[in-house]
C-alpha cells in the first residue's frame, strides 16, 4: 500500500502539481488570445508582451508597496499590486487599440495584416518594457514560499517521497479559476457579454440589432487586458519575471488556443491543460514510480521515458499538427465565444 502511495506522490509532485499550475498559466493566456480572435478576428501576437507589461506593473507596484512596509503576511504582496497592474494593462491595451488597431478596423484590413501589425505592437511593447525595467531577471515573490514543503510532507506522512506545493502554484490555480469563472459568467449572463457573443457570431446582424461595435471592441480589450495582467503576474510570481520568456511563452499559448479551438473559451482552457500535461507526462521518467509499484524482479533498469526532454517543445506542435489534421477547428469547435 505505501508503495502505491509513494508512486502516487512522485506523480503528484513532478507531474500533477506543476502541470496544474503551468496549465492554468497557459489557459489564462490562451483565453486572452481567443477573446481577441473571436471578437476582433485576428491573432494577437502582442499578447505575450501585454502579459509582460502587466507583470512589470505589478512588480513596480510591489516594490512601491514594500518600501511603504505594506504586505500581505504569508501571501505575496504582488496580489495587492494586481488591481493596479490590471488597470494599467487595460489602459495599454486600449491605447494600442486606439493608436494602432482602430485604423485597420476602419479600413477593414485582412486578418494577416492585423497579425503583422500586432507583431509591430509586440516589438514596441517589448522595447518599452526593457526600457522601463531592463532585461534582467526579477524575483518579486515574498511572504511564505511554500504551502507544503517536500521535507515536511515526508515527516507528516512517513512516506519516502516528498510532495511540494508552492504558494505561487496554489495562488495561480485559485486565481485562474476565479478569472475563468468570471469571464464565463460575464459572457453568458450579462447583457454586454451577450452582445459580445452576438457581435462575434455575426457582425452585420449585430450591427443591425443596434449593438455598438466600438463598445464591444472596448470591452473585449478590457477583458483581454485584465486576463493578460493576471496571467503575466501569476507566471512571473511562479517562475520569476524576465522579459525574454514572455516572448517564448507565446508559442505554447497559441498552441493551447488552437488545440482547444481558437475562438472558443472552453477550448482555450482545455487546450492549456492538454499542452501542459502532455509536455509533462510524455517526457517523464517513470523508473522510480514503477520500481515502487512493480515486484522487484520486474523493476525497470532504464529510465522508462517515452521521449527525452529535448523533444518537449516539439511535442506541443505534434499535438497541434495532429489536431489540425483530424479536426481542423480544434477540440472544441462549433460556435465562437
Amino acid at each position: 500500500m505505501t508503495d502505491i502511495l509513494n508512486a502516487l506522490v512522485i506523480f503528484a509532485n513532478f507531474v500533477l502539481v506543476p502541470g496544474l499550475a503551468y496549465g492554468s498559466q497557459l489557459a489564462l493566456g490562451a483565453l486572452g488570445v481567443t477573446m481577441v480572435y473571436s471578437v476582433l478576428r485576428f491573432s494577437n501576437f502582442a499578447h505575450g508582451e501585454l502579459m509582460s507589461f502587466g507583470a512589470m506593473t505589478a512588480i513596480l507596484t510591489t516594490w512601491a508597496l514594500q518600501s511603504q512596509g505594506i504586505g500581505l503576511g504569508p501571501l505575496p504582496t504582488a496580489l495587492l499590486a494586481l488591481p493596479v497592474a490590471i488597470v494599467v494593462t487595460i489602459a495599454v491595451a486600449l491605447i494600442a487599440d486606439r493608436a494602432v488597431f482602430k485604423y485597420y478596423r476602419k479600413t477593414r484590413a485582412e486578418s494577416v495584416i492585423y497579425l503583422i501589425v500586432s507583431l509591430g505592437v509586440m516589438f514596441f511593447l517589448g522595447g518599452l518594457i526593457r526600457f522601463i525595467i531592463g532585461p534582467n531577471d526579477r524575483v518579486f515573490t515574498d511572504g511564505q514560499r511554500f504551502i507544503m514543503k517536500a521535507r515536511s510532507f515526508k515527516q507528516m506522512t512517513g512516506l519516502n517521497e516528498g510532495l511540494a506545493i508552492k504558494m505561487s502554484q496554489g495562488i495561480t490555480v485559485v486565481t485562474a479559476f476565479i478569472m475563468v469563472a468570471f469571464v464565463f459568467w460575464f459572457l453568458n449572463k450579462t447583457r454586454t457579454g451577450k452582445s459580445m457573443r452576438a457581435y462575434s457570431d455575426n457582425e452585420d446582424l449585430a450591427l443591425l440589432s443596434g449593438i455598438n461595435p466600438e463598445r464591444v471592441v472596448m470591452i473585449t480589450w478590457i477583458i483581454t487586458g485584465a486576463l493578460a495582467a493576471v496571467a503575466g503576474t501569476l507566471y512571473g510570481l511562479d517562475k520569476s519575471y524576465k522579459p525574454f520568456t514572455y516572448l517564448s511563452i507565446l508559442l505554447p499559448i497559441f498552441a493551447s488556443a488552437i488545440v482547444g479551438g481558437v475562438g472558443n473559451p472552453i477550448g482555450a482552457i482545455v487546450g492549456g491543460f492538454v499542452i501542459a500535461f502532455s509536455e509533462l507526462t510524455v517526457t517523464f521518467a517513470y523508473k522510480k514510480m514503477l520500481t515502487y509499484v512493480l515486484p522487484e524482479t520486474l523493476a525497470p533498469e532504464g529510465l522508462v521515458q517515452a521521449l527525452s526532454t529535448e523533444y518537449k517543445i516539439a511535442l506541443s506542435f505534434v499535438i497541434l499538427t495532429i489536431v489540425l489534421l483530424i479536426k481542423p477547428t480544434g477540440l472544441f469547435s462549433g460556435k465562437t465565444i
Partner: protein
Amino acid sequence: MKKTLMALAATTLLAAPAMAEDVKLGIILGFTGPIESLTPDMAAGAELAIAEANASGNFMGGTNITSVRGDSTCIDSAAATATAERLVTADKVDGIMGADCSGVTTAILQNVAMANGVVMISPSATSPALSTLEDNDLFFRTAPSDARQGQVVADILIDRGIKTAAMSYVNNDYGKGLAESIIENFTAAGGTITISAGHEDGKADYGAEVGALAQAGGDILIVAGYLDQGGKGIIQASLDTGAFDMFFMPDGMIGDSLPEAIGPDLDGSIGSVPGTDSKGAAAFADMASAAGFAAGPFAAESYDAAALMLMAMQASGSKDSNVYKNSIMDVANAPGIKILPGELGKALEAIAAGKDVDYVGASAVELIGDGESAGSYAEIVVKGGKNTTARYR
C-alpha cells in the same frame, strides 16, 4: 534644408579623413539574449583596455583607437553573422573582440572573419570544437576550452566525494561540448552520470526536465547552462520540487544574479569559472570598480582580449589582421616583461622600443595550442548568498 544637408555633407567629408587614421575594434557580444546580464561588464572591460591605450598616447605613434559595439545575441547565428558583416564591411573594424557564445562565434569566424581576413579574439567561447576548427590563424581566445573545464569539474566532484551526478545541459554548442567533456572525465575518474539531458533556453516551464532528472537521481545536479536562462529555471524547479538540493555550476552559471535570485537554498552548491589568484585579477577588479562596472565573469578575459589585439598591432606595426595575427602569441607568452592590467601604456612603450613583452593581464593569459588560454579555474562555493572562491585549480 538644403543648407543643412550641405553642411552635413561637408562635415562628413571633413571628418572622414581624420577617422581613417583611427584603429577601430569591433566588440561583438550578446547584449540581448541568454547572457545579457554579463555582457555589459564584458564590453566595459574591453573598452577599458582601449581607453587605457588611448590615454597613454603610446599606441602606434599616438594613433587613436575607437570601438563599436555589435550584438551577437548569443544564440542566433544569422543575426550574429549579419552584425559582424556590418562591422567589418561598413564600420571597417580592424579586429573583433568577440564573440561570446560558442555557436555564434563559430558562425562569425567561418562566415565573416575568415572571408574578410579579420582577427577575432573571443573572451568567452569555450567549446572544444573551436580548438580544431580551421581558422587561417585568425582566431584566438582568452578563455580556456571546455575540454579543460570538464577535467576540473570531475576533479572537484571526486575530491568532494561525490560519485553520482545527474546532468542537464543547454542544448547548444557550449552545453553539449561541456557535457561530453564532463561525462568523459567524470566517468574516467570513477563517477557515474545517471542521466544527461538537454534543456532549451527561455522556455516557459522546466517541470518536465526536472521530473526526468529527479527520477534518475544522483548526489548532485550538474547544470551546464546559462544563469539568466534555462539553467536558473532548472535549479529553481529542482529546489521547488525537492528533487535536488545541491548543484554544480560550470562557468556559464557563475554570476552574482543567480545566488541573489535563488536565495539561501543555493548555499553549499559548488561551481567552476575561469579565474586566477594572480595579482592581475585583483588589479583589474580595482580598475573596474573605479571605472564604474563590476569585474564579473569574463570581464577580465574581455579586457585581455582587447589588450592583446592592441599590443599585437603595436608589435607588428600594422593594423592589418593578416600581419598582426602573427604577433598575438608573441605578446601573450614569455619571454618578455610581465604586463599586468593598468600597465598597457608601459607595454606599448616597451614594444615600441623593440622590447619583448609577456602579457599576464587580468586573467593570467598564457596562450597554448592554436591560440587559446591554458585555463586556470576558480572553484566556487556558494556561501551566505554569495559566490566565494574556495581555491584555484
